[in-house]
């Protein structure tokens, strides 16, 4: 099973509680991004994100972990989410409905007779595949600073979108709510070939590890 998280992963060791808080922050920012795109007013980023998350996946065990955080940890996470959300709202701005935005766009491709499963979720897809020329742009949001892993993820999104729709997207972008940076790559054959190489390298790494 390959996903964008697999490609993003670096080999550094994370403290378990940091990883949990990071995951929770990531889910909350993704959820808030969906509300932003749907032009929903967000009063309290932390409370609104938790409410929406609980409404979508009430049995998520991460929610259970959050419910048991102490007051200091909750306050830190609340401030963190508010800060990331402010950067996101300022950086992305309103998305017009005429761009046909779709959020949390899923893709799933089976390769090698079903032995390899490629999964992906892109935070925002705009444009349509129903034109003679590609006019689809992919936008992913991360709460981490952008690095080499981010480029791999951007390429992976473009590859999965191409496999899913048989139409090459125009651009693939990634926005960091940690730094406010936006990276954008034009999608061409070379980029897709590099994405294939990334997937092949990840598969080889998995095979060697097992």
């Amino acid at each position, binding site marked *: 099973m390959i996903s964008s998280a697999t490609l993003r992963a670096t080999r550094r060791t994370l403290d378990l509680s940091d990883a949990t808080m990071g995951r929770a922050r990531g889910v909350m920012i993704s959820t808030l991004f*969906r*509300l932003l795109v*749907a*032009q929903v007013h967000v009063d309290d980023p932390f409370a609104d994100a938790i409410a*929406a998350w609980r409404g*979508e996946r009430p049995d998520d065990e991460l929610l259970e972990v959050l419910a048991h955080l102490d007051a200091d940890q909750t306050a830190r996470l609340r401030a963190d989410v508010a800060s990331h959300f402010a950067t996101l709202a300022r950086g992305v701005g309103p998305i017009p*409905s005429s761009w046909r935005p779709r*959020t949390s766009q899923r893709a799933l491709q089976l390769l090698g007779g079903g032995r390899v499963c490629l999964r992906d979720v892109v935070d925002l897809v705009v444009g349509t595949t129903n034109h003679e020329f590609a006019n689809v742009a992919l936008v992913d949001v991360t709460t981490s600073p952008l690095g080499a892993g981010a480029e791999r993820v951007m390429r992976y999104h473009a590859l999965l979108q191409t496999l*899913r729709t048989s139409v090459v997207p125009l651009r693939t972008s990634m926005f960091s709510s940690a730094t406010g940076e936006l990276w954008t790559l034009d999608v061409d054959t070379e980029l897709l070939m590099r994405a294939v190489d990334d997937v092949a390298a990840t598969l080889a790494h998995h095979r060697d590890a097992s």
Partner: protein
Amino acid sequence: MSSLVQRRLTSRDITELVDDAPHDVAQMSEEHRASLASRFRAVPVIEHRRLDAWMVEQAGRPHTAFAWSPATARRILGTNALRRVLATSDTILNAVRDEVADQLVRTVKGYARPGSLGHWLAGVSHPVLGLITSEAVNWATQALDLVEGLPAPWRVATSDVYYDVAGARTTLRGRRDVLLDTTDGAIILRLRSGQPGKSAGPGLRSDLVVATLAHPEGLAPRRYLGLWPDAGLVLAVDGTMDNVRAGARDFIRSAVAQRRHALVRAA
């Protein structure tokens, strides 16, 4: 022999599947209907039985209780919003908001029964309502993107199709999202999430048989297309007598399996 066609989900492939749909389709006679009813009557049931493609795909296994969520609400809201967009040329987001507002108004006026979508929407918080809107916008946008280039006049289905089996306390439900009207009959499209599994073919054939039974003259649709945008795949079954028979058999098997599970639970 029943058959299943698989293609990539591209405009060109869908156009080919529409253009190449068979012109001669199966017709279910009164004898066929009577025979099906007698088979269902042979599987006794205490409560009214409702069967659909999902039950067939799950081989009659009991499913968990239905609960509304942004994901389960998106099809109704998204489809209704798409119909609004086609009628008014409004944006999809506005159409979804109007649809949600209509559901809420119906609830306030007392027209929504407990457990209905409107009743649930009236009780959710503002952020959850935002997420529901987002899911419905996704559904409608994806559906519009898929059907805009279709080579025949199309319309959004006003409802799913139902057929009550005479004297068998059984209702069959067939899901449908978009209908293509051609001179030789209908071609029906159904949108699905995720990846088609091994039982996707039987599921499509179940929808095909309900559409055939519900037709006033018992005519099968020319072709039933299942669209899986997440996986970029389309599966198709033709309106042949073999496929209709296979679909009917799968329903009977599901009814038998459902009864077996009910007996195990009761024991």
